[in-house]
């Protein structure tokens, strides 16, 4: 058991840290991460109207690209860095500690690995380089209004017509589609097969005729998600990854990424530290509720819980580093992290008493730019998306503990 780096790990960590310190554009220095609507992130910046933002996105992508660190986990033959899981972990840790934005979004994390495993040589040659050089950003079209937790019941239809599929239907929660160039999606190609066996995995240009992306404005007035409508959208059959009707299994490919979720833990710890420091500062005291002691205990609990989350992340990477595949442990991380996030947002908001009402980022009356009340709202979907807490607990109980399915 060891909570510290080996010498080799420590050397790699220094490299990453030096690189970030040297090459991270000013725009991202001291940034505390992407906003709920991707603001301040690479995806938004590369399509920004502000030339400085675009420049920063480009420079940072270029710098990472030099090291092969746009896609640290991809094999070197495909232009990745071929990092080990532990190296990826250290890389991700350092990126998160510095608040540096990752580059390549879902193209790097989802589509690329899927292509690498299931794609044809033509598909790989066409798409992988354009992900790595930042030319193409990808969005994911999985969920539908009627297929959320029960994703496999998706109904968006793709009908083969010669060399094309013709797609009709609707996707929802297509996050970042408004910054994306291409979309990968699961569609039903065989409505008569059992629900997991009639689905195909398609890639399509987001500007395809008949495809409409409509913003979903969330309860915090942000725009993280979209609805995507398909009206006779035509996609060449060559854009199907893997076999037709086998898309469910293509989409569920277990990627050889480190899956620790360490960046959550790091961001929670940083956020709590900033809050505590501000609370006891002169500027903070003017906002702090008179009966501060009530929050004190909660702040201590959140700190302990964050330590637990760190350990959950360390556990995952330890498992992966020893060549095994995490089972229920990843579900524990997701569930625990998202629920802790909500508790943290409540605790933080509570610290401000009546000031917890204030929403304006730029008001002198808003403590810490109203970050906490915004997080109180913004953390709501974290226990819902990417597998709700209910689904995670089901998975832990059945897949993890072997309890019989209900």
């Amino acid at each position, binding site marked *: 058991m060891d909570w510290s780096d080996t010498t080799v790990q420590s050397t790699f960590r220094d490299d990453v840290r030096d690189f970030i310190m040297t090459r991270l554009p000013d725009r991202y220095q001291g940034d505390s991460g992407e906003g709920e609507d991707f603001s301040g992130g690479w995806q938004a910046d590369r399509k920004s109207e502000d030339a400085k933002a675009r420049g920063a996105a480009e420079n940072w992508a270029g710098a990472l690209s030099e090291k092969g660190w746009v896609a640290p986990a991809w094999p070197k033959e495909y232009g990745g860095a071929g990092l080990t899981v532990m190296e990826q972990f250290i890389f991700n840790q350092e990126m998160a500690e510095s608040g540096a934005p990752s580059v390549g979004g879902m193209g790097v994390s989802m589509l690329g690995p899927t292509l690498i495993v299931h794609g044809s040589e033509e598909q790989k040659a066409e798409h992988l380089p354009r992900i790595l050089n930042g030319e193409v950003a990808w969005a994911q079209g999985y*969920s539908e*209004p*009627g*297929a*959320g*937790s*029960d994703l496999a*019941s998706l109904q968006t239809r793709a009908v083969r017509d010669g060399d094309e599929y013709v797609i009709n239907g609707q996707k*929802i*929660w297509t996050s970042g589609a408004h910054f994306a160039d291409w979309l990968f999606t699961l569609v039903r190609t065989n409505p008569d097969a059992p629900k997991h066996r009639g689905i195909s995995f398609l890639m399509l240009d987001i500007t395809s005729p008949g495809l409409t992306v409509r913003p*979903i*404005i*969330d*309860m915090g*007035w942000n725009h993280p*998600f979209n609805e995507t409508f398909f009206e006779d959208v035509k996609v060449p059959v060559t854009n199907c990854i893997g076999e037709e009707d086998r898309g469910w299994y293509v989409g569920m490919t277990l990627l050889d990424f480190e899956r620790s979720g360490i960046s959550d833990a790091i961001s929670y710890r940083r956020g709590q530290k900033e809050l505590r420091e501000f609370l006891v500062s002169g500027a903070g005291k*003017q*906002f702090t*509720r*008179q*009966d501060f002691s*009530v*929050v004190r205990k909660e702040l201590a609990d959140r700190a302990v819980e964050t330590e637990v989350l760190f350990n959950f992340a360390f556990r995952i990477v330890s498992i992966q580093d020893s060549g095994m595949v995490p089972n229920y442990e990843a579900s524990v991380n997701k569930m625990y992290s998202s629920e802790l996030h*909500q508790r943290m947002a*409540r605790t933080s*908001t*509570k610290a401000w*008493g*009546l*000031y*917890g*009402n*204030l*929403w*304006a980022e730029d*008001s002198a*009356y808003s403590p810490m730019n109203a970050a906490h*009340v915004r997080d*109180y*709202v913004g953390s*709501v*979907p974290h*226990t*819902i*998306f990417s597998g*709700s*807490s*209910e689904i995670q*607990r089901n998975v832990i109980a059945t897949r993890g503990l072997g309890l019989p399915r*209900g």
Partner: protein
Amino acid sequence: MDLGLSEQQELLKNAAREFLENECPEQHVRDMEEDEKGYSPELWGQMAEQGWQGLLIPEEHGGVGFDFLDMCVLLEEFGRALVPGPFMSSVLGGGVSIMEAGSDAQKSEFLPGIASGDLIFSLALTEPSARFDESGIECEATVSGNDVTLNGTKLFVSDAHVADYLVVAARSSAGVCLSIIATDQDGVNVTPLQTIARDKQCEVVLNNASGQLLGADGAGWDLLKPIIQKYTVAECAYLVGLSQMDFEIAVDYAKERVQFGRPIGSFQAIQHKCADMVTDVDGSRFIMYKAAWSIATDQPDDETTMAVNMAKAWCSEATRRVVAHGQQIHGGIGFTKDYKVQLYFRRQKRAELAFGDADYHRELVAQQLGL
């Protein structure tokens, strides 16, 4: 012992529900979020025609003369419909303040206007210290006879931007004093703040603002006590209606939304959340009514104070649990601006914080328990 509504209360409740379903639908609530005034003068007038602004005000001053329990029945419906606007500000902050502290002349001067809706009042209690106790009152008052001159900043003043008058708590050489000031004077500078609930809470900067004394100079804090108690319970009533509706929306959704071939409401995880929600909502309702009853029937001071603190301690937390479950049951759709349930989630926070959250009131309970 009877926890049911009286016939008159049932009538009031049913009339209010029907009226508000028609006149204050979801779209109206949304419109007012973006509206500069934050309320519709037309609806305001219609509510006055219903007699609501004057519900608590005696008939001799143009009101209906119902009691405080009745008012809470009405406010439950307000919470259910998320009625935007200065109703509580004017009725609790203005009307109740004047009824509790005003001279006969002041009652005659202001209450009819409040009852008719022609005047809008608000209570300027808190300041940048955001405290609810007497020491939180630092705004300077200079009292000369019946005239008061005020200097200082009041904060989180609801609806001050549309109020004709403010009841201001300030500190004079004699202690805390209340006064009534008109907002249309140079010395009153009102700036609305952006809030999570998109309601209108304002900064009010007073710069030699002048007004008239309300109650005796130095007696302000004693006079405030029953006003704050009623306002606090009124916020609880609003929370009860709000959380009841959030709960109903969530249960309806759980019955309709199908995943894995069955309504999600058939899953125990959802069922048990709903069971906890109804427990929290019902618990909120009765502890609120107990406090309202205690006020309305003039129970002994210590019992009323305890009942009020307990009500706000419970309702603040329990309704927060309800709206959090409401969001979780809805899944993704509940997080969208376009779906109604988030309106309840955001507004719960305002009322949770108003006049102190659960921790604040729990501390007062502990003190009264001799701990």
